[in-house]
C-alpha cells in the first residue's frame, strides 16, 4: 500500500533580492564605493559586521560562478540602500567594480554574525587594514551615534589607499600608517595600535591575515588577563553562505567553525592562526 504524503508545510523565506546600482564613487586608490538599493526590511535588521553574498556575473553566465562576500560599509534609510567597498582584485571583484548606476545585481543576505559592543564599553579602538576598513566604518557610525569614544587606526600600502578622514562621521580620532611612509606612521598600523590598548574597553579589527599575526603579538604584550577583548572579522572565500558546505571554516579552539554563520566576527583569542 502506498503511503500518503504528509501535507507540505511552508517554512523558508528567501534572503535573496534583486538590487539596482544607485551610485559608484571612486575612493581609496583603485577601489569604489558601490551603493545599491536594498529592501527596507533588510536595511532595518542589519547589524555592523554582517555581509552579503553578491553575484558577480551577468544573468545567464556561469562564470565566475560563486558569489562574493562583502561586508557593509554603510547602510542608508533614505533611499533604502547599502554601500560596499569594492577593490578590483580577482575576477569577481573586477566585474563588480565595473558596474554602473542602473545595472541590476543579485544579492543574498544579510548573512553572518555581527560585532558586539559590550554594555559597559565606552572607549572603542578600531584597527583597519586596507579594504578591511569596510565593516569598521559602519561600526564606528553606530558607536558615535551612541555617544561612545572611538579611536580609528588604519594602515595601507600608501596614502592613496587610506580611507579619507572625511568618510568618518562624528568625533573620531583617526590615526594612520602607511607602508611607504607617504602619510602618518611609516610602517604597520599594528606598530602604533599598542599605544591605545590600555585606553580601550574593546578592540575591533578587520584586515588581511598577516595583520592578525602581528596583532597577536601586540595583544599578548599590552593586554592584562586578555582585557580588553578583541573582536576580528575574517575574510574567507566561500560557497553557500549558510554553513552547509563548510568551505569557509576558521580554525578555532572549538574546532573548524563556518565563518559564514558563526562568523565573520570571531573572538580573537579563540582563533588559531
Amino acid at each position, binding site marked *: 500500500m*502506498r*503511503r500518503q*504524503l*504528509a*501535507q*507540505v*508545510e*511552508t*517554512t*523558508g*523565506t*528567501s*534572503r*535573496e533580492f534583486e538590487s539596482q546600482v544607485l551610485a559608484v564613487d571612486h575612493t581609496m586608490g583603485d577601489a569604489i564605493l558601490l551603493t545599491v538599493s536594498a529592501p527596507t526590511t533588510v536595511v532595518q535588521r542589519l547589524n555592523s559586521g554582517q555581509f552579503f553574498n553578491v*553575484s558577480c556575473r551577468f544573468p545567464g553566465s*556561469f*562564470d*565566475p*560562478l*560563486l*558569489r562574493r562576500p562583502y561586508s557593509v560599509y554603510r547602510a542608508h534609510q533614505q533611499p533604502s540602500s547599502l554601500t560596499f567597498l569594492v577593490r578590483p582584485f580577482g*575576477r569577481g571583484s573586477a566585474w563588480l567594480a565595473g558596474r554602473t548606476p542602473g545595472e541590476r545585481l543579485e544579492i*543574498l543576505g544579510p548573512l553572518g554574525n555581527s560585532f558586539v559592543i559590550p554594555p559597559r564599553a565606552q572607549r572603542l579602538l578600531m584597527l583597519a587594514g586596507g579594504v578591511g576598513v569596510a565593516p569598521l566604518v559602519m561600526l564606528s557610525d553606530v558607536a558615535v551615534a551612541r555617544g561612545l569614544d572611538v579611536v580609528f587606526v588604519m594602515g595601507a600600502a600608501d596614502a592613496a589607499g587610506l580611507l579619507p578622514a572625511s568618510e568618518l562621521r562624528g568625533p573620531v580620532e583617526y590615526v594612520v600608517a602607511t607602508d611607504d611612509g607617504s602619510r602618518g606612521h611609516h610602517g604597520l598600523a599594528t606598530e602604533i595600535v599598542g599605544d591605545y590598548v590600555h585606553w580601550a574597553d574593546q578592540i575591533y579589527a578587520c584586515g588581511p591575515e598577516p595583520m592578525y599575526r602581528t596583532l597577536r603579538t601586540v595583544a599578548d604584550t599590552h593586554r592584562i588577563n586578555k582585557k580588553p577583548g578583541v573582536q576580528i572579522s575574517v575574510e*574567507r*572565500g*566561500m*560557497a*553557500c*553562505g*549558510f*554553513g*552547509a*558546505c*563548510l*568551505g*569557509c*571554516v*576558521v*580554525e578555532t579552539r572549538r*574546532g*573548524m567553525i563556518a565563518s559564514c*554563520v558563526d562568523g565573520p566576527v570571531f573572538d580573537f583569542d579563540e582563533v588559531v592562526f
Partner: protein
Amino acid sequence: MTAVTSHGTADLAVDLAPHNPRELLLRNPFMAASGCFGYGEEYAGVIDIQRLGAFVSKGITPERRAGNAMPRIVETPAGMLNAIGLQNPGIHGFVKKYPTLWDSWAVPAIVNISAEAVDDYAMMAAMLDEQPGIAAIEINVSCPNISRGGYCFGWDAEMSAEVTRAVRGVTTLPIIVKLSPGASDIVSVAIAVEAAGADAISLINTLVGMAIDVRRRRPLLANETGGVSGPAIKPIAVRMVYQVASAVRIPVVGMGGIMSLNDALEFFLAGASAVQIGTGIFVDPGLPIRLIDELSQWLDEEGFSSFNQIVGLANVGFRSGDPHLFRFREASGL
C-alpha cells in the same frame, strides 16, 4: 490545490525504490545533493525545504572528522573545486541529533555514508536501520579502500558491489549507490551494484581535479586535489547518466552542474528518474524549489500528464533495451 501543483496538473511523483517494500517516494524529482545542503536545517530558514523531493545529508563517517585545512574551495571556470575532507560529527554524533529532527519533517531525508572499509559501511548502515526519520541511505563509494592500498572503491565494479552487498545485508532501507566518474567503466560498476542489491544509482560524484597557484608555485587547495563540480562538468554527467540508464533497470538519479530547468530536462531525457542539485544551490538557493514549479508548467505545456513519461525519452539504448549496443558504439567511437 496544494502548493506542489500550484503551477500545473502533471503528476510529479516518483518512486526511487520500486522493488523495495519500504519505497522511496518523492513528491517531485528534485533533490538537494550531499555536501551542498548540510543536514537540511541550514536551509530551513532560507527556502521551503519541505517542498523538495528529498535531500541528502552531508557525508557521515564512522568517526568524527575535523576536515581538511584551508583553503578548501577554489573557483574554476564555470565551476569549483572542493576538498572539505568530510568534516562531520561521525555516525554516533549524527544519530543523537538528526533522526529525531528529521522524523518531524515531511521531506524525505537521505543519509550519505562514507568509509574506508567495507565493515564500517555495514556498521553505519546497521545503526541507521534502527533510526526514525531516515528515508534511504546513499552510499558514497568515492572513498579510498584501506585494505586495497587506498584504491577508490568506486573505481572498481567488484569493490563497489562488495560495499553494496554488505549494506544490503544489514538494512531494509532503500539504498542508493552514488557512483564515481573516475571509474574506467562506469557502466560495469552500475551493473555490479544493481546485482548487489542497490535500489537506485546516483551519479555523478565530483571529478578529481586540481588548480595551481602560479605565484606561490603550490597547489591552491591545502589538500592539493579536490572534486570539480558545477556547470563545467554537466556534459560528462549527462553522458554517464545516459549510459548507465540504458544498462540498468533500477532508477537513476542524475547530477552534475544543473543550473536551470533545461539542464534538469537533459538529465531526465537521458534517463534520470530524479536529479540532485548541488553547486547550483550555493549560487542560487531558491533554484531547486523554482525548478519544481518550472517542470510542472513545462509538462503541462508539452502535454505530458506525468513526469515519468519523459524519463529516458532521448535515450535510444534505454528504449531499445539494448545497453550493450550503445556501450559498443561509445567505446569504439562509432
